[in-house]
Each structure stands twice: as C-alpha cells, then as structure tokens.
C-alpha cells in the first residue's frame, strides 16, 4: 500500500517537473533547435539549377576564397575582444565602487544609474551617439567653439566610435556579475593581505582578481557574445566602414537572398564565438558550468 502511494507520488512529482519545464523545452525546440537544424541543412547545400539543390561545402569554400569575408570575420573577432577588454577595464572600478565603497541607498542608486540607459532601445542610444559625434553634432561643435579644432571634425564612422558604442551598450552586463563577485569578497581578506605586507597592486592581483575570476569570466563571455552578435551599433556608428560580420549575414539573407551563404556565415560565427569562449576559459582556468552558476 505504502509503496503504491509512494509511486503515485513520484509520478505526480515527475509530471510536475515536466510541466514546469515544458515552456522552456518548447522555447528551445521551436526557436533554437529547429531553426538551427534548418540552417545547418541550408548551409550544406548548393543550388545547381532553379529549385534543384545538392549537398556541398561550397558555401564554406566561398568564405575562405573571398578575402573580404574572412577579413571581416577576423576583424569582428578582434574588435569584439578589444571591446570586451575595454568594458572590463571600465566596469571594474565601477563595480568596485558599487560593491565595496558605496553603502545602502547609494549602492542601489549607482546600480540603477547603470541600468537607466537600458530603458531606451539600442537604436535610440545609438542615435544619441550619432547626435553627439556627427560632423554637425554637439561634440565637434564644442571642440570648434573652444578653438581646439578649426573646423568640425567627423567623429562617426571610426573604429574608435564603434568601440565606444559597443562598450557603452555592454557595460551593464559586465557590471552586474562583477558586483556580485566582489560583494562576496570578505573585506577581512583584503585587510589580512594588507596586514601581511601586501600593497594595492599585489592585493588586486593575488586576492581580488582570483576571487572575482568567475564573475570576470562570466561577464566577459556575456559581453563578448553580445558584441560579436551585435548588428545595430556597429552599423549605425561605423557606417560603411564598420565591416561587422553580422552585416555580411544580413546582406546574404536580405539583400542577396542567398540563404545558403547566410546560413553558412551564421554557423561560422557560432563556431567562432564558441572557439573564443573556449580559449578564454582555458586561459583563465575557469569551468563554464561554475562560471555560469556563480554569475
């Protein structure tokens, strides 16, 4: 009797878990797995005649054969890494201030300040930068009025502009995991290190960074992926010279209507981000599961 009741209970529990997981499973299957299977099939075929396709690696061969494509590919990767590094450097002191220096209401106020830019859409934020930086915009005007430049300077469409926009867009995603990583650091550890003869730099290197490593890595992964896959900010702030790989994908799908090529590019980008994240984890000695759990 008892075992029967228990087995009924177990079945119920299992059903409950299945029901709770259902939305996530449907979400993943419909929006992630299915499209990727379709894209994988697309990327591995070539059109030989109208409505006639053959399995082939031609799409990937095009990528390696055409320097523009893989130049853009490498450039996107390098720019994303640089942008992630800058974001980390800028966000770290901010996170330190929020986690260790600010107290009470100040602490939450500072976090809200980091969040406020996200109340408007990315498009509006990028347009804001354009208003500030374009040749007839605010900043060139100020520089001219101050006599620093003789004529308005075009500040848009440089690599630096793209980086500024990207760092600005991803700041929050770096600050939040860093704050939670730094908050869990016991102040006594810093005092103990200081007491034993450590100085600011050695404490940062030997105590703070090792402690915050999971937070740093998880922030970097999120920011890197967001940056690599960003379309709007590089396009708006970099214009024609942005050469972002997502633009190539967009062009293939929308302008050229070459879905096969676009799908192949999509997979290449996925491979690239996976590879770089993997290398990053190896270099920092962190484990993906642990990093994601701690952030």
């Amino acid at each position: 009797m008892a075992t029967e009741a228990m087995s009924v209970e177990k079945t119920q529990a299992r059903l409950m878990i299945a029901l709770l997981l259902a939305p996530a499973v449907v979400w993943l299957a419909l929006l992630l797995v299915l499209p990727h299977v379709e894209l994988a099939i697309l990327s591995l075929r070539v059109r030989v005649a109208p409505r006639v396709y053959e399995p082939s690696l031609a799409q990937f061969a095009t990528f390696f054969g055409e320097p523009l494509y893989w130049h853009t590919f490498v450039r996107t990767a390098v720019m994303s890494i640089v942008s992630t590094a800058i974001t980390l450097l800028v966000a770290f002191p901010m996170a330190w201030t929020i986690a260790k220096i600010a107290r009470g209401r100040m602490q939450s106020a500072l976090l809200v300040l980091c969040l406020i830019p996200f109340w408007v859409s990315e498009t509006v934020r990028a347009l804001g930068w354009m208003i500030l930086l374009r040749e007839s915009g605010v900043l060139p005007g100020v520089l001219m009025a101050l006599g620093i430049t003789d004529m308005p300077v075009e500040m848009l469409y440089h690599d630096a502009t793209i980086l500024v926009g990207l760092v600005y867009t991803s700041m929050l995603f770096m600050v939040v995991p860093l704050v939670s990583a730094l908050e869990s650091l016991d102040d006594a550890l810093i005092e103990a290190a200081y007491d034993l003869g450590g100085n600011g730099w050695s404490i940062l290197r030997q105590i703070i960074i090792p402690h915050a490593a999971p937070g740093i890595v998880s922030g970097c992964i999120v920011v890197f992926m967001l940056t690599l896959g960003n379309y709007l900010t590089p396009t708006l702030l970099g214009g024609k010279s942005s050469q972002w790989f997502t633009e190539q994908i967009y062009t293939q799908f929308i302008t050229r209507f070459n879905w096969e090529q676009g799908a192949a590019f999509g997979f290449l980008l996925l491979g690239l981000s996976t590879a770089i994240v993997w290398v990053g984890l190896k270099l920092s000695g962190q484990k993906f599961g642990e990093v994601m759990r701690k952030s």
Partner: protein
Amino acid sequence: MTQAPHTDTAATDLQALGVSKHYGAFAAVADLSFSVARGSFFSILGPSGCGKTTLLRMIAGFQSPDHGDILIGGKSMQGVLPNKRPVNMVFQHLALFPMMSVGENVGYGLARRGVAASEIKRRVGEMLERVSLPGAQAKRIDQLSGGQKQRVAIARSLVLEPTLLLLDEPLGALDLKLRQHMKIELKQLQAAFGTTFVYITHDQSEALVMSDHVAVMHQGKFEQVGTPQQLYYQPQTPFVAGFVGANNCLQGRATAVDHKNITLVTQGGMELRAVAMGPVRVGDAVEAFVRPEVARISRQAQTFSDQGHSAYGGKVESILFDGANSAVLLREETTQLEFRIALPQTGQFHDLAVGEQVHFGFDPQRAVCFATGDRATTHGH
C-alpha cells in the same frame, strides 16, 4: 587605573599614550594609556561595544587615533601604514586566502617582502612544523579542520617574526570542545615563540586561562589591568567584580566601617560584612560581591556561627547541575534575594531537594564591596 605591568620602555613591546577615538560624540576609546611587556600574553577583555576592536584596529593601523600615540617596539606608529608595521593580526574569521594553498598562505608575507623562493620554502616548512602541521603546504584551505585553520592563521603571521601578534577573538567561531583545546594550544604556542600576544575577547575564561595580564575594558576605558588572579580576587571596580567570573551582587548601605571591614544592610534588611575596595564611609550606597564558591551551604546554622560568620536562611529554588561547576540557587528568606552558591565536590548535598530550607554563609574577608558614589542624606535601615 592600577599600575601597568611594566613601565620601562626597554622591555615594552606596545605602549599606548593617551589614545582616543571618537565616532561623532561617542567615545569608542577614551584617553587610554597602557603598556605591554615584551614576551607577555596580554588580553583585553570586555563586552561587545566596549571599544576593544577599535583599539586593536588602531594598533594594527587600520584606524588612526584622534589623539595620542601608539608605540610598538619603542617606535611611534603615527602615519605608519598597516603593511609597514611590525605587527600582524589573526582575524576573527581568520581570513585565510581560499585561493591559495596552505604553503602559499604562510609564505604570502615573506613573498611580499621579497624573500627568495628557496628561503620562503624553507621557512614555511619550518613554521608549519612548529605549529604541528608538517607537510601541509599543498593542502587547500577548505581541507583543513577548524583547529588546523587556526594554526595556519597563526603561522602565517608568526613566520614574519612580528614584534606583536594581535588576535581578534579568533576562537569565537569554534565549538566549545575545540575552543577549550585551542586555549591551551595558543598559550603553549605563545610560550614557545616568545612573541608578545595581544588578544581581545569577550570570553572571560579565554582571557583568564591564557593571559599573563588582562585589561578589563568598559566604555572605552580600562577598568582594571592585572593578572587573572588579581582581577578575580581583588577586583577594583564593581564592573570588574560583576564581569569577571560569576558573582552574587548585593546592594545596600554601609552601616559600620572598621578599617577595611564594612558592614552593610541591604534594602530588605539583610546584614552582611565584606572587605572594602577603595574608600567607603558610613552611609554610602555600596555594592557587595560574593563569589558562588566563597559562599557555602549547610543544614545547620551552627556551622557558620562556630567560625564567627553570619548565617542566613534560604530556600532551594533550583539546582544547577554542571559536573564540577554545579551550583544551587537559593532565595534568602527575609529579603527574597537570589543567591548562587557552588556545590562542594564531596557529594555531601547530592540529596538536596528543591524547596528545602538550608542555611548559608560566607567568609567576609573573601567578599568585596564598593562605594557606588551615591551618598545617603538620611541614615535609613
């Protein structure tokens, strides 16, 4: 304040000269002067909020005094940063570096001083042997037991051969058994190394067991500095009498003064005698303290009158059995005052029952009394 342990600077490792620290209007540490002899185990004992942590942090250099100066090894520490002081600290929760191995923890300070790697290895090995953790270099911190962590924390500080080792209630987080054990171990370590230890705690038993000298701190001031025996047997202030060890406190007015021997009568009319600590005049409001082990119980009142001590009657209210520390709570019959008396180890009162009428008394020479500063205008009672 009573005399400091030693006053000549040659043999003092720590000296405080009029040190004060205020937080707004609140004086955490108020004009404190004391010195600690080289190689001694000095404890600062006080309830939480008495300013002992602030004092310790000022010695370590994490806070600076508003007034006064702290001398370590005879040198003024004004403007000397914590990482430049010849002082190391064992933190309350030890603050071992979880990202480093045991060996790296112990070697951290040496590495920061730029000692060569081979030398660090040798000295870390030696130090771990001295704290009975030989070969533990490669262990992770979370692999250690509470007592082992304690030893690593001490080794990490002592390997730097500081003039002074500060300990901020490091035994607080341990369970009772281990704490008893670590008390003895800490005392032995201190004796073996000969380093001056300054230990802060709110646990009087820790302070009494380990220290050569104890300062009882209250509201930013030292109430009394002395050996554990002095604090226990000759408390100089009512606070010390009440804080160090268990004590029965009786309030009343002095009715007769014969040199140091005071007779006092409590509000309820209980008359008792005690030895005055400090000046007491007839009519002063006084507080008398009788230790539970000073008082005795008996089934015959005659036991006390034979020795010339007063006998009191009381009813057993509860029996507090705690092995060797067993005691009985009595209620005195005329005043209804509660009285705690230690039970003798002879087993003589094993049949004592709650509600039983017994007699009790104590040697007046072993009871102390203090004037509380409130002088009577009328001679009552």
